[in-house]
């Protein structure tokens, strides 16, 4: 019998709250969870656990325009997210996905196969290094967190984006090889050019249903401890931290 996967569908949910929820689900729950957040609220910058803000973000512009900068609990790089971003998160017990070794590359590969099913017949989809691409253009970025018995794999999908928002991010020093020397606009693409938003979400749920018994749950019914009872790793950077980054950058 297929393991149970609880599906929580959100829309316009703030990304900081989503990441906090994911951390609590990973660390306090023993169930499998899929969160689909169809666009977050206003723009936010989200860095990986070890991200150094002075190296990744144009601090002066970010401060001027009051863009929140978040450091998340998973690894990986920096993204700017907004209502044009669709988030899909999978939180699994390793024993419920027992043919996948609980290490970064097997999990990444498994996710590539899952999304291969989502985009089958629609686009030239690949998992390229650690990104989801159509051809050689990135439309989805991934990150993970792995504990003793569970792991989370989450993706931010570029449904649409504003070019001006990309200017808040510096060109990363660590870039995938396939990027070559391309700047943002030549490196990424918009999912909306390939399929409707609702179709992507329905196809994703269908692909997950091929491996799990999916049950939809309202956020209010998730039975996850509230924020106040848990110390999160994910946090919003302070104004002082951004000012310090400004100092380094001048």
């Amino acid at each position: 019998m297929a393991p149970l996967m609880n599906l929580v569908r959100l829309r316009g949910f703030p990304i900081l709250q989503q990441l906090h929820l994911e951390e609590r689900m990973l660390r306090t729950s023993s169930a499998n969870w899929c969160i689909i957040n169809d666009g977050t609220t206003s723009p936010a910058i989200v860095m990986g656990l070890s991200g150094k803000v002075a190296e990744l973000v144009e601090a002066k512009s970010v401060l001027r325009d009051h863009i929140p900068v978040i450091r998340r609990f998973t690894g990986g790089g920096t993204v700017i997210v907004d209502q044009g971003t669709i988030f899909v998160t999978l939180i699994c017990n390793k024993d419920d996905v027992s043919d996948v070794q609980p290490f970064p590359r097997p999990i990444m590969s498994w996710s590539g196969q899952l999304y291969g099913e989502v985009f089958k017949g629609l686009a030239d989809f690949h998992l390229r290094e650690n990104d989801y691409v159509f051809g050689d253009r990135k439309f989805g970025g991934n990150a993970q967190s792995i504990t003793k018995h569970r792991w989370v794999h989450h993706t931010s999908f570029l449904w649409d984006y504003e070019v001006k928002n990309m200017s808040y991010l510096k060109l990363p020093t660590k870039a995938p090889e396939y990027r070559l020397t391309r700047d943002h606009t030549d490196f990424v693409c918009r999912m909306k050019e390939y399929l409707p938003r609702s179709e992507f979400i329905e196809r994703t749920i269908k692909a997950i249903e091929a491996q799990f018994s999916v049950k939809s749950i309202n956020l209010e019914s998730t039975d996850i401890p509230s924020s106040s009872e848990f110390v999160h790793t994910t946090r919003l950077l302070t104004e002082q931290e951004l000012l310090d980054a400004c100092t380094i950058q001048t």
Partner: protein
Amino acid sequence: MACRQLWASRAASYLRLSLFNRPFSSVVKDLKYCDSHEWVKVDGKSATVGITDHAQDHLGDVVYVELPEVGKSVTQGESFGAVESVKATSDINSPVSGKVVEVNEELNSSPGLVNSSPYKDGWIIKVEVSDSGELNNLMDSEQYSKFCEEDSKH
């Protein structure tokens, strides 16, 4: 070729390393191991902890190590820190219970030591052990080698 193998086997014996042809990872004989792929070297009440060659090989290039504060309590089997590799943060779990007395600050500037020298320069924390009896819950090198072999079959 035979001479090189003989040399390697003698060197391994001197260093107390068990060498297998890849894909099996190296294991050090006098250490104890847990099933989440951490090792511990115990010397009286003092213990040094790191992750195994199997772990570093499967994690990929480590780019960051989140170290605990000195003075923090650790519990056998529970997370005390994390490593970042590829796009993942992975918990590091303590093989022993006690108090952190030292952390390997070198890992702040050279996190790759965890990959290049998992049993020596890539050590992560030193712990003042509170319950030596818990060591009986851990695997010896032979048991751990077999455990990794089984793990690799999945």
